[in-house]
């Protein structure tokens, strides 16, 4: 076995919105074939990190190396070619409302692959079968449930057989069963297609099921990064609280009115 190959490297990423600094020097390294989960409290900048990597938001500083290529200063052509090697599943699927599910999945193929229409149609059916949406090929996005939209978005993200897949909260809002199916699909992408997956998610069950490694962000910085078990065994307070489902308490700055007036807690059951 050779040493793990980094597929994605983020160095000192800084993102500001107006006067607010959302990310203040974030580093991240993701290796080939691993499933990386990005964690953090709500509003901690997880989606922003993903957008910064993908070039969807202005970055005030830092460098992203994706599949061996520095993203900054890349010309339009090579950037386009690089983007064809990744897939992105957005938070709500981001399907094009004027196209059917099948047309949505076919779109990147039509744009970037010179294939006969028959082959494209076949490919679309294969991708839809992969996410268990064969029956929805001719429906419009407005006719789908939230979970179906996400799966359709995933089929579209997989259209060009990406080497790296990015997902923002793929299982948020899904019932546990669908969420588990999505997890096993992501696992099989890694196992059978050697795909690298970068996922933002809150779902503990999902994290336990799929994560190879973790990156936790908070206060604009990286709190922890590394293989799942190792990070969890380090005894970092924020990580432990997250896994004990107590992330909220990090942000709590309030006290009860009784404490405010210095009252002793009343005896329970009195």
């Amino acid at each position, binding site marked *: 076995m050779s040493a793990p190959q980094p597929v994605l490297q983020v160095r000192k990423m800084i993102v500001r919105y107006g006067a607010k600094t959302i990310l203040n020097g974030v580093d991240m390294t993701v290796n080939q074939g691993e499933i990386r989960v990005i964690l953090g409290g709500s509003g901690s900048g997880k989606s922003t990190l993903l*957008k910064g990597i*993908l*070039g*969807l938001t202005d970055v005030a500083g830092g460098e992203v190396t994706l599949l061996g290529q520095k993203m900054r200063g890349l010309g339009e052509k090579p950037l*386009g070619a690089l*983007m*064809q090697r*990744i897939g*992105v599943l*957005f*938070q*709500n699927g*981001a*399907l*094009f*409302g004027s196209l059917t599910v099948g047309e949505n999945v076919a*779109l*990147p193929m039509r*744009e*970037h692959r010179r294939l006969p229409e028959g082959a494209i149609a076949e490919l679309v059916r294969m991708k839809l079968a992969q996410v268990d949406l064969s029956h929805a090929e001719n429906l419009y996005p407005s006719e789908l449930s939230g979970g179906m939209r996400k799966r359709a978005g995933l089929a579209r993200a997989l259209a060009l057989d990406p080497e790296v897949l990015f997902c923002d909260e793929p299982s948020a809002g899904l019932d546990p069963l669908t969420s588990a199916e999505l997890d096993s699909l992501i696992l099989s992408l890694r196992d059978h297609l050697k795909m690298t997956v970068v996922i933002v998610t809150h779902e503990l069950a999902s994290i336990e099921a799929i994560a190879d490694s973790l990156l936790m962000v908070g206060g604009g910085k990286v709190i922890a990064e590394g293989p799942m078990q190792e990070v969890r065994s380090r005894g970092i307070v924020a990580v432990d609280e997250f896994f004990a489902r107590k992330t909220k308490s990090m942000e709590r*700055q*309030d*006290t*009860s*009115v*009784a404490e*405010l*007036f*210095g*009252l002793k*807690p*009343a005896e329970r059951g*009195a």
Partner: protein
Amino acid sequence: MLSGELTAAGAAAFAAGVRKRLPTHRGHLILDLTGLTAIDSAGTATLVDVWRIGKSRGFATELVGIQPAVQAELEQFRVTVELPPPAAIPGFFESLGASAWQAVTALGQFTVLAADVTIGGIQSLFIPRRMRWATYFREASLMGSQAFGIVGLITFLIGLTLAFQSAYQLRQFGAAIYVASLTAISMVREMGPLITAILVAGRSGSSITSEVATMKVGEEIDAMQVMGIPFVDFVAVPKVLAMVTMVPLLTMLADLLGILGGWIVGMVYLDIAPKPYLQKTIDALVTKDLVTGLFKSVVFAWGIALIGLYHGIGVRGGAQEVGKATTASVVSAIFFIIVADSVFSIIFYVVMA
């Protein structure tokens, strides 16, 4: 000394009473709650308010004789001790500077978009593979069918009104036949292009904004970018081109129906025979009138489409912003049309005369 219940109903009276008796200096304020049997969130808030006043004036507030039920409520509600600083309200000149700066950046962004789309559009015409013809035809037929009826009806009525109004004056000089020339020239040079553009801005310009804004909010534009599908080619150019081709066609329809309106007034109200009226109309119009009218309508169309796109992709935040962007888009499009029209008037009547 308090008694009874301190709930929303009595909180105001309590607050007023206690505020009057608050110490103005350091010391202790003791509130005896022995008689208090119940309290709710409003009542608790008034207590916290007293505590905060004390904190700022330097006296400590103490509660004594608390009943268990009241204590349980006070444990239930949570407050932050350190309040965040209030949002600074900028001064007049500061706001003025900020909005001037905003206007400058907005103009810059608009110029970049306009250049991108216009250059992209011109290139697409010469590189047919780049042009999304199917999208273009869908957009064009949608715009045409959306505006057809309303443009026809309104400009017919405007033609009628114009004819009545000019007849009212011209008849005094026995020059009623000139109603034909006046109506025709006003329709073709001014009213046709202007009214059509304003109606299209309300009907199709707004739907460009709401469509693009919805795409933006739903991350569809981000998705296009990561899929290497250029927004300009895929969405913007077909819409602008559809607008720029349909609006002149609609303007011609408007011209015709306006003239028809005048013609009917001429026949029914002024007893002018149909043929002489038409003859007068044709004599009055020169090619230049038609060309300037259509040229204006192309510029209006270009502006409406670009303003629609600009407001759409500028949307930040959630779905509630889509409506605001749509309204803003219609207002700025109509503003643009009127300003451009007066600039054209100066050019055509003064400079080129």
